[in-house]
């Protein structure tokens, strides 16, 4: 299948050139994070005085400690954990249920509902944030976790992804289960859910990245420092000072990036697949 090229056909100077180009690109992609880390362990005078000195002779974790003690960072982390846990779990559940129904169900209105999914795809979330903010006010969900989560949970992408995946499962699995006497819910729990594990994992990663990094909507719906997820806390924190304490900003940024980075290093293939699936889905 794969369009692999014969290595022997490439002259060695071209291989070297390819390595140089790709290495440059890789370094450009990673260097800012590495350099941010190296800076975050420098004492403050060095940060201001010697930007080009890569490795400090006196490493320190003072910025990490200062930031953590002067700001409710722990609470922001907890908020982000609550939000990602809830959003990921709810999305997986609702999207796989709806995706299953839209892929395999036979009921009136199925096509109409699917058109609705496609339709909501082209609504940019930003376009509905004002009315949604007002609506959240009606039901008292401003400043709640639910208010933040609900926009991520409702996104149509997951339904589309799961539907696409379930379409590829042969009907005979469901028919065999039907003949065995399973009802629709048993088929969902015993057949569909386990068979769709890879798609669920991809969707989970996708929603995780999305919720962990969400900025604009939480910024709008939450105005209490106690309710901020990390990105909002960080984004507003930087703006508080005339003279930005760079050591702290970078330390906090890296702390925020760390869970995603660790997860990415551990499950790198799954991450790329999760993103690439979006490409496979094609709009």
């Amino acid at each position: 299948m794969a369009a692999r090229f014969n290595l022997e056909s490439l002259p060695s100077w071209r291989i070297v050139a390819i390595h140089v180009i790709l290495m440059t690109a890789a370094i450009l992609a990673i260097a800012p994070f590495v350099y941010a880390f190296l800076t975050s362990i420098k004492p403050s005078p060095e940060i201001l005085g010697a930007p080009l000195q890569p490795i400090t002779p006196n490493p320190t974790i003072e910025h990490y400690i200062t930031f953590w003690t002067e700001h409710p960072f722990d609470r922001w982390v907890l908020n982000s954990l609550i939000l990602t846990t809830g959003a990921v779990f709810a999305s997986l559940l609702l999207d796989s249920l709806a995706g299953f129904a839209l892929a395999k169900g036979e009921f009136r209105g199925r096509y109409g509902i699917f058109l609705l999914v496609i339709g909501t795809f082209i609504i940019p979330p930003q376009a509905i944030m004002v009315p949604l903010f007002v609506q959240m006010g009606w039901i008292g969900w401003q400043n709640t976790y639910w208010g933040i989560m609900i926009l991520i949970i409702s996104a149509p992408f997951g339904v589309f992804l799961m539907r696409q995946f379930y379409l590829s499962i042969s009907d005979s699995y469901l028919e065999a289960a039907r003949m065995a006497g399973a009802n629709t819910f048993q088929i969902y729990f015993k057949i569909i859910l386990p068979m769709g594990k890879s798609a669920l994992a991809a969707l989970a990663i996708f929603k995780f990245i999305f919720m962990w990094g969400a900025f604009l909507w939480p910024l709008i719906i939450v105005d209490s420092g106690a309710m901020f997820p990390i990105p909002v806390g960080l984004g507003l924190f930087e703006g508080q000072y005339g003279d930005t304490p760079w050591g702290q900003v970078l330390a906090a940024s890296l702390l925020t990036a760390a869970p995603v980075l660790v997860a990415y290093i551990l499950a790198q293939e799954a991450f790329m697949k999760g993103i690439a699936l979006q490409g496979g889905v094609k709009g």
Partner: protein
Amino acid sequence: MAELEITNLRKVFGDEDETIVAVDDLSLDIEDGEFVILVGPSGCGKSTTLRCIAGLEEPTSGDVRLAGQSLLDKRPSNRDIAMVFQNYALYPHMTAFGNMAFSLEMGTDLPRDEIRRRVEDAAELLEISELLEQRPGELSGGQQQRVALGRAIVREPEVFLLDEPLSNLDAKLRSSMRAELQELQNQLGVTTIYVTHDQTEAMTMGDRIAILNQGKLQQFGTPLECYHEPNNQFVAGFIGSPSMNFLEMAYTDGVLDNGHVQYHAPQSLLDHIPPNTSNLVVGIRPEHIETNADPGDQNVINVVIEVVEPMGDRTILYTSIGEEPIIISSAEEEIIEEGSEIPIHFPPDKMHLFDRTSGESLRAYERASPLAEVK
């Protein structure tokens, strides 16, 4: 007991604008313990029929009765029917044991140890006891096939439905599985309906075969009946390999003529031709054409052999009469060379005659009498 009666089954797909009649007025009476093959080209409605029996499709009209009771208002799981799917539909996330136990867990209230006993019995019967803890992904095609069979067996149903179960196996495994399936069916004595498009499977496996074309039943009888006494041109062409040769011929005054050859029909043949019939189709099986004909016979046809395919036990010869290709399956040992001209002869007692417009059989060839009694 459990005879399965299908009466006037009709299934129409599509909406008002465009309808496809998948099954058209099909009636079959299947006896208890019988092994029936539904055979026909793809799109002939055989799978739809099977799915209507299973309850996966709702027939447009007609009835399906098991032991006198209509199945139509019963759910698939309550019909006492088990089905083996073409792709086996083994759940990849369950072990072989889990797959086989699944339907008992879902559809029955049997206690755990009874389920275990049944699954183990079935596994022993199928010789897959040591594979029970493996998942389908770790099993070979043949082993998956057995697990799929086991899943049907554990339910101890009245009827087995098999939907092209061998089509995913390689040729060698397929022929050994054919024999094994037959033996298994004999042993269990369960009424079995087997769908296939492969006429070899149809001929070798079933007690009776039902040949379908375009949703309509063409013939329902034993394999030999269908081979020797085809109801119509379709059945004649479908059963047998290589398939029967057909020649369109005009009939006048005891002579059959297709513009290239003339055949002086003996009286035994003429008796079958209804009066005022002038357009006929003559059919003759490749294995019945004689290649060592007496050149003096007036009905001998000289043909040029175009291609020769030696098969070992017999030789397939390709030739033509006029535009019509003719295939000859010769058991003669002498070697015939490509390009050589040989005299061939159609023995009149082995010729089939068909009405050209309706395709109905006018005459099947006369065969040895004991076969007529096989049913």
